[in-house]
């Protein structure tokens, strides 16, 4: 079944989709084009928030709020702290602007990547629509599947994360003896 543009545009939800998607897209462009590193990160926040909102629209509440909690609430904050502790000039960062010779291939690559992924998704799902879940969200079922069918991958992933955590601490922590030598 195909959806005409007329059908599409009369549906109020699609307006909401546009209201979210367009700023998200704009913010995404801003992330790579911003002249100030903190602003770029803040634009990334908007992009992520938009993505989260799209997930919410699709009824994937758990994923949506996870993006907010993990990406905006933790990852971005750590980005910002890292930047601000080391250097956070309020002016433009000179080393952020790349020469044209680097911009053009980057833009080209992005467009190709988008085309490939978009094409692949469209080709495999086409106009297939998944009905929005009713009242209950899918969180319970996510949890259930995670801890029954996928419990081993889940544990493996958490183990990897733990290892990464320990590795991070080991890297960041200065050895007192070494410090003494220097």
């Amino acid at each position: 079944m195909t959806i005409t543009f007329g059908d599409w545009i009369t549906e109020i939800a699609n307006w909401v989709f546009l209201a979210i998607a367009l700023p998200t897209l704009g913010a995404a462009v801003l992330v790579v084009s911003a002249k100030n590193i903190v602003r770029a990160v803040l634009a990334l926040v908007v992009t992520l928030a938009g993505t989260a909102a799209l997930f919410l629209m699709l009824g994937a509440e758990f994923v949506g709020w996870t993006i907010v909690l993990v990406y905006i609430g933790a990852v971005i904050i750590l980005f910002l702290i890292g930047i601000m502790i080391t250097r956070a000039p309020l002016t433009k960062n000179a080393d952020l602007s790349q020469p044209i010779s680097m911009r053009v291939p980057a833009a080209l690559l992005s467009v190709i990547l988008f085309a490939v992924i978009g094409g692949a998704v469209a080709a495999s799902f086409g106009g297939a629509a998944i009905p929005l879940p009713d009242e209950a969200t899918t969180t319970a079922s996510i949890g259930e599947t995670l801890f029954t069918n996928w419990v081993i991958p889940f544990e493996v992933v958490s183990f990897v994360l733990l290892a990464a955590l320990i590795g991070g601490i080991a890297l960041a922590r200065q050895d007192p003896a070494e410090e003494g030598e220097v």
Partner: protein
Amino acid sequence: MITGWFWADVIVKVILALAAMIGMALVAIYAELKVMSHMQHRIGPYYAGGRWGWAQPFADALKFIQKEDLVPEGADSTVFRAAPYIVVAATFATFVVIPFSPSLVARDLDLGVFYLLAVSSLTTLGVLMAGWSSANKYSLMGGLRAAGQLIAYELPLALAVVAVVVQAGTMSLVGIVEAQAAPITIGGLSISLPFLLTGQIVSFVIFMVASVAELSRIPFDMPIAESELTMGYLTEYSSLRFTMFFLGEYAAMISMSAIAATLFLGGYWIPFVSETALLYFGPFILIAKISLLVFFILWIRATWPRLREDQLQDMAWRWLIPIALLNVLVIAFFKVVVF
């Protein structure tokens, strides 16, 4: 599906929640003025509005608003201007899921608790933005302190909540209240008790400590420590934007107390009151519990000096988080094995 009524419903609820937030924040400001005064043997506000100086918070707000809205030279004005909105919006968003009675809740999300944690973490973002964009070293240091503090205490806070979720078996706030209202049978005696009395006392203490830290209130108010950083990330703010931060702070205090009351003290529910009565008296019951917790937070402020940033981090990572983890373990054990 989404209909026109859906949007009308949303708008009405948003306005109601906004009114509740601002109204309760103003009351909290007034309470702070009065409670602190009496603890310090002062009279406190006395003239504004006549009796008991009840209009003092309004007068304060008006005074702040009529000041000049300054953006410091050299500041990143877009970010600077946006920061207070983020803080207020994040605080406001928490009011959406707080149930004031079985039916009086803007939106009872299935993921209520998860949503709360996600949304309240956005405050950090606003604070960091405010600190960085002010072009002021005190502000930057204050913002960094705030962020470090909020990150450190998000963890014990979440873990304390996890313990409650494990016991209740749901993340919906209404569900959690109902779980507390459900009677437990010990021997022949059937009784319903709030979670505080049924094994969550450790979680409650951790939650309260962490929430005071999240609120940046004494003894954890290093981000705005006036004797060190003048006013931290708020230093450069004036006028309406300062008022927003100010209101946001007190609204956050209310919302944190409301969450604590809901999670641990039974929210709008108290024993021996029928379902129907709760429909009408629920809000008052919840507000009474909130007041109790707010008073507790004010009391702390009147009593204690502030800690140092490293001591605060020490406390979070070396004490609160391990204890909270252990607590989750114990509660999960009881939940799975004993009951």
